[in-house]
Every structure is written in C-alpha cells, then in structure tokens.
C-alpha cells in the first residue's frame, strides 16, 4: 500500500471523515457518516451500497453541491490546475435532459455554460453520441427516446467538456441487462482511452467489481461506515473475468461487508 501510494503520488480526491446530516424542522437525519477514502488520478472507483445508504449524497458532496458537517475533502489534488467548473462531469440517476432541446443541443449544454467554442463542441457532441450508440438520433427530442437512450445521451453530455473527473450516479440503472453489459465495456473503453478519473455509483456488486480499480462499500444502518477494497484484476477487464475465482472472492467479500452472508 505504501509503495502503491508512492508511485501514484498525491490522491486526486481525498475524503476524510465526511459526515452529512439533513436537517428539517422536526428532525435530523444522518445520511453519511465517516466517509473516508482516496481516489487517485486515473482510478475508476465504484461506490456500492444498498438503496438509501447515501451514495447520491456523497457524490453530490464531491461535486460541491452539498455542504458537509465534519471531516475534510480535497478534490483535484494539491497544487494542480483542477477547475471545479470545467473538470467535473456528472451523470445523475435520472437523465435530466431538457425537454425543449433536441438531443444534440442537450449534449452541448455544458459547453454552452462554460463558454467553450461551439463549433468544436458540436463536433465533439456528435462523436460522443456516436460512441454511446445514438448516432442518427441527434435531432430528436428527449420524449422520442427510450429511457436507456436518454441516459446514454446524459452520459455523452457529461463528457462533452472533457472533464478530468466524472461522477456517475447509477448511470446504467435504467438499462436492460444486455445494454448494461455493453455500456460497461464501453465505459471501460472510454476510461482506458481518456484516463479520466471516474467515480461510479452502483448497487450492482458484480458491476462494481468488474469496473472498479477500487470499490468503496457504503453500508446502511446508523453506523454508515465506508470500507475500501482494491480490486487487483488485470487490465483491461474482459467479460470472462466474471467467472474467475478471484472475481467471486471479491464479490463475496462485499456481500459480507454488507452483512448479507
């Protein structure tokens, strides 16, 4: 571990004892407690845990959308040229496409907001749509797409401004098993090519192990502890790894952490 940390240098994201409490007039609700983990540049970290355990909340904290109570958070590493506006791409649990914009116009939205050159953004958006399998649907409105197609458009949108960090909140939750498998491989391909840092929320344990260089396990219940497992499967990942002994060992371990075995 020490050797590993030395070769990889400073972590890209460092969370230490992050705690989040939602307060309403009547009550306080502890949504995240003591989330502590590092993400290194170029990592693909899966964040796995049961529904309601605080995955979305944690992702939004990292995106700078929520404040938090205790702990410290560093995003972008020390002294780097990380720009929190330009360098974060986010895929939400719902596609969140603008109903009144065609698909292509939806994908270029981040470029518009950041004031990037539009011609280049359009070209890039076309390429990205092609990559997520939506070539030929650029001029459709979101209501003309299926749920899975909308989510893929949202993934293209999160990449259009070429961010260093991509936060994905169950992006494949709405997809059928086959498309999901295909998108997993696609995501790995994008990640290998671009060497982006990806934080990937899922409640699929196998998916978490298959994709991640590291899996962060969030448990439900009042303790809400986070645990980290490094996944030492070879890169690039291939589908047949899922049947290997080592893969099974990782998934079993996560099931145990979640108290299901």
């Amino acid at each position, binding site marked *: 571990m020490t050797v590993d940390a030395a070769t990889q240098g400073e972590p890209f994201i460092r969370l230490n004892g992050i705690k989040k409490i939602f307060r309403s007039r009547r009550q306080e609700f502890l949504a995240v407690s003591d989330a502590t983990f590092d993400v290194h540049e170029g990592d693909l970290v899966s964040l796995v845990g049961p529904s309601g355990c605080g995955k979305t909340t944690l992702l939004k904290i990292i995106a700078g959308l929520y404040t938090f109570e205790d702990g410290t958070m560093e995003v972008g590493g020390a002294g780097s040229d990380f720009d929190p*506006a330009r360098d974060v791409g*986010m895929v*939400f649990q719902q596609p969140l496409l603008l*109903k*009144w914009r065609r698909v292509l116009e939806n994908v270029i*939205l*981040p470029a518009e*907001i950041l004031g990037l050159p539009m011609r280049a953004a359009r070209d890039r958006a076309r390429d990205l749509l092609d990559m997520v399998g939506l070539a030929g649907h650029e001029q459709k*409105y979101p*209501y003309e797409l299926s749920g899975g197609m909308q989510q893929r458009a949202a993934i293209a949108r999160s990449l259009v401004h070429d961010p260093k960090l991509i936060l994905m909140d169950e992006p494949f939750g709405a997809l059928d098993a086959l498309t999901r498998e295909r998108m997993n491989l696609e995501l790995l391909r994008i990640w290998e090519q671009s060497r982006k840092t990806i934080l990937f929320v899922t409640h699929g344990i196998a998916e978490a192990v298959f994709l991640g260089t590291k899996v962060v396990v969030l448990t439900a219940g009042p303790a809400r502890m986070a645990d980290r497992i490094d996944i030492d499967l070879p890169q690039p990942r291939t589908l047949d790894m899922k049947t290997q002994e080592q893969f099974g060992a990782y998934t079993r371990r996560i099931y145990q952490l979640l108290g299901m075995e």
Partner: protein
Amino acid sequence: MRLRITGDAALRWTAIVGVHAAVVFLWYLAVEYWEIPKFILASPQATFMSLFDDYPWFDNTLVTAMEIFGGYFLAVVVGVGLALMFSWFRTVETLMMPLVISLNMVPKVALGPLIIVWIDYGLQTNIIIAFSISFLPILITTARGLREVEPDLIDLVKTLRATRWQVFIKIQLPGSLPYIFSGMKVAVVLAVAGAIVGEIIASEEGLAYLIGQVQVTLDTAAMMMAVILITLVGVALYLIVLILERVFVVRDARVETV
C-alpha cells in the same frame, strides 16, 4: 414544431368543423319546427343576413377587437414581466404573492364600474378593464413555472458553476414557457369578458354597445350576430396563442388547459 396536417390532424379539423356545423343545423331546425318567434330566437339565415342591415358592423368589431387585443397584450407584458421580477427578487415575491392571490379572488367584473369612475369611459378604459381582468392568471402561472424547476436540473448546471443568468435563460425561462402559455390561454376568455363588461357599463362604440342599441328595437338577429362577432374575435385571439404555443413549446412539454 412545424404545423403538420397528419391524418390525425385532418380528423380533428373535420370534428371541429362538423360539430359547429351540427350546432348551426340544430339551431335552424329548432327555429323552423318549434316556430319560435323571431324576436326570441332568430334563425341562422336571419342572423347572417343582419350583417347586411344598416349597422356599423365593421367599425364596432374593430373597436371591440382593439379593446380585447390591446388589453390582452398589456396583460401578457405586465403578467410575464411581474412574474420575472418576482423570480429575480424573491422578497418581492414573498411580499406580493399573497396580495396577488387575494386580488385574484376579487370578482374582477365588479371592478368595471369603479375603473370607469376613475378614468372616464371609452376605448382606453375598456382596454384597461380587459387588461386588469386577464393579467392575474398569466402572472400566477408564469410565477409558478419559473419557481417549479426540477432541483436536480439546477444541480446539473450548478456543477458547471452556471451564473444565475445562465440558469434563468437556459433552464428557468424555457421551462416556464408551457406554464406561460397555459396562463395565456385562460386569459383570452377573461380579456374578452373584460372588454365587453366595459362596453356594457358605459361606452359609445363596440359590439356590446351595439347590442344595447339594437336591443331597443328587438332586432334579435342583429344582437345574436354581435355576440357571434365577439366570439369570433376571441376565437381569433385564441388561435393566435395556440399557434405561438406550437411554435415555441415542444409537444411533450405543453400543459393542457381548456
């Protein structure tokens, strides 16, 4: 969105024309077979022929149309404008919205006589009555549309550190367009009512004024023609709004109203 006549649309147009024609036909039958005195219900033909009587139809229709369109235009400008101000200055909204809701409860038709007391009668007065009756629903629905943006959508652009203006111009305003149009559709009916109320209370021109003149001579056909012309002015305005909605609002986002 383009205007397309698909098979579906053709069917709808047939239905629209068919239903109206059927009503006119029933009206014709009723007058013919129940032998209703013509000063109670004039026949469709007589009503139509009254257009060629010696009444100033054109001038009065023009006056009424100006009142309705003028009042309505003001209502859209002021209603949308105030709603935008509310959305930019939340304290103003917090202070003013309760007042707006109470004002909306006022039977606005009853304000007609007061407004005439305040600013004499005439075309401008009727424009103001039409305006004051019809701007509140536009204000209320627009304010609601600007307020009710999906929070995650705001989060999405916040991760990009969008400015308030960007949030407004790219998310809030286009998102509120369907609401604006739904308010505008409700307001058409009210603008018509407002202009007519003004004319009935006190005026020297306009279709409702003409109705008052003709009433004395019991020319029922002409009275009915005047009502039909008022309706047509309202329908014309409504169609304009519908067409604008089709142009500016994507089908999926449209809010259905009357």
